[in-house]
């Protein structure tokens, strides 16, 4: 589903002494099927931006187009269409409430009046997508799972609505490295298999570099930079100004290029770790024929 923001602003507590402009004239287009990384400093407006996607927040001015639905300050997203936008908040395990895992995952689909048999199938499917075994976990209380399992159940609860757009706000916070990889790989797999449009809010440049094919860099309620990762990462200084890092790979390449003569320099598009390693290996290996 294609997403367009046209001159969107959002002002919190308008007309009070605490008024605060959180988004300022944002215009952007996210093509259907892309995996977008959203990065930015604390308070830059990332969460505000994504909450506009399913009508949790209404724009103060401007308009948002989601597929063929249009949201304006006066027009909400119809309830039925909210299902298309799956929003996974930070620490989503805190929203679990049902007596069993299966019931909790079914909450979303049931709210959208799906027939019961269909719901059950979806619950099963989405639990399996996040790597949990349906049979063993479905009747357990979500409150007695480990932190990592709770996170996955919560994620399954959103996936069970079968959204067309998946929005995730720091889904890996607090997980150990293996847990991060499992969750992100899982998300990436469904992104491709179900041809979702995915937005990933993250503080980790490495995660953004690894999965995203498009990056949005937010700063003070505006889009400071956007484009393909290699384009965005070229603006090392601008990113530093925003007190954001570049991925370690990018930093490494730029440090090396400072030491290397121009003809030996590395291409700056090597921001994916595997590609960087492959490139270095190729340059460093002893030629086979030799």
């Amino acid at each position, binding site marked *: 589903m294609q997403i367009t923001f046209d001159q969107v602003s959002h002002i919190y507590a308008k007309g009070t002494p605490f008024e605060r402009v959180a988004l300022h004239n944002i215009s952007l287009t996210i093509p259907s099927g892309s995996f977008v990384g959203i990065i930015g400093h604390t308070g830059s407006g990332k969460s505000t931006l994504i909450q506009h996607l399913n009508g949790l927040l209404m724009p103060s001015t401007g308009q948002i187009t989601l597929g063929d639905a249009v949201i304006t300050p006066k027009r909400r997203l119809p309830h039925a269409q909210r299902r298309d936008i799956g929003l996974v908040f930070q620490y989503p*395990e805190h929203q679990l409430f049902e007596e069993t895992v299966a019931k909790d995952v079914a909450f979303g689909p049931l709210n959208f009046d799906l027939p019961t048999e269909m719901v059950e199938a979806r619950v099963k499917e989405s639990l399996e997508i996040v790597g949990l075994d349906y049979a063993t976990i479905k009747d357990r209380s979500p409150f007695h799972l*480990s*932190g*990592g399992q709770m996170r996955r159940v919560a994620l399954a609860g959103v996936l069970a609505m079968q959204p067309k757009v998946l929005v995730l706000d720091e889904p890996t916070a607090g997980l150990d490295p293996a847990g991060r990889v499992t969750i992100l790989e899982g998300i990436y797999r469904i992104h491709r298999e179900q041809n979702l449009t995915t937005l990933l809010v993250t503080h980790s440049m490495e995660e953004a570099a690894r999965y995203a094919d498009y990056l949005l860099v937010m700063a003070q309620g505006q889009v400071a930079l956007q484009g393909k990762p290699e384009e965005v990462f070229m603006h090392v200084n601008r990113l530093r100004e925003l007190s954001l890092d570049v991925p370690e790979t990018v930093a490494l390449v730029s440090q090396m290029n400072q030491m290397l003569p121009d003809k030996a320099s590395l291409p700056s598009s090597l921001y994916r770790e595997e590609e960087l390693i492959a490139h270095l290996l190729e340059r460093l290996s002893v030629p086979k024929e030799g």
Partner: protein
Amino acid sequence: MDSTFSPRKATKTKTLVINALFIAFTLAATMFINLRLPIMGNGGLIHLGNVPLLIAAFVYGRKTGAIAGAFGMGLFDLISGWTAWAPFTFVIVGAMGYVAGLIAEKVPGNRVFVYALAVVAALVIKIVGYYFVEVILYGNWIQPFGSIPGNVLQVVVAAVIVIPLVGRLKKIVGQG
């Protein structure tokens, strides 16, 4: 990562913190979750402060119930310009929490029935208590009747919300 959610034995400190959080809940629900009704009686104010109060009393017992009521709503009066009402609220709502908790703890039988009974007892305390306070404040015996419908509605709405929840909450904290 938060470790597994696991019911642990309540320590004294934890009890204190739970009491504090229920004071906060009660105060916040009284202050911020308001339905304004176009009828008289406390200015037609329906707040949801009784929800955390009843939860405290039913899940954690009479002491927490009393503390949530007395300090939660007493503090609300104290800091929002109803200072003169604060001492009375302290006593009346504290007693509500205490009695509701006591009944829930001590009376055997069908839980829903017992909770309903506890709510009725709390309601009686509230009505009678505020009736006398208002007699003093308004200088007559008729006007205080005006607040009774509001008080009833407040507590009944809270009860409708709370009673179906209690069993599940108790199970979660490992006391059910």
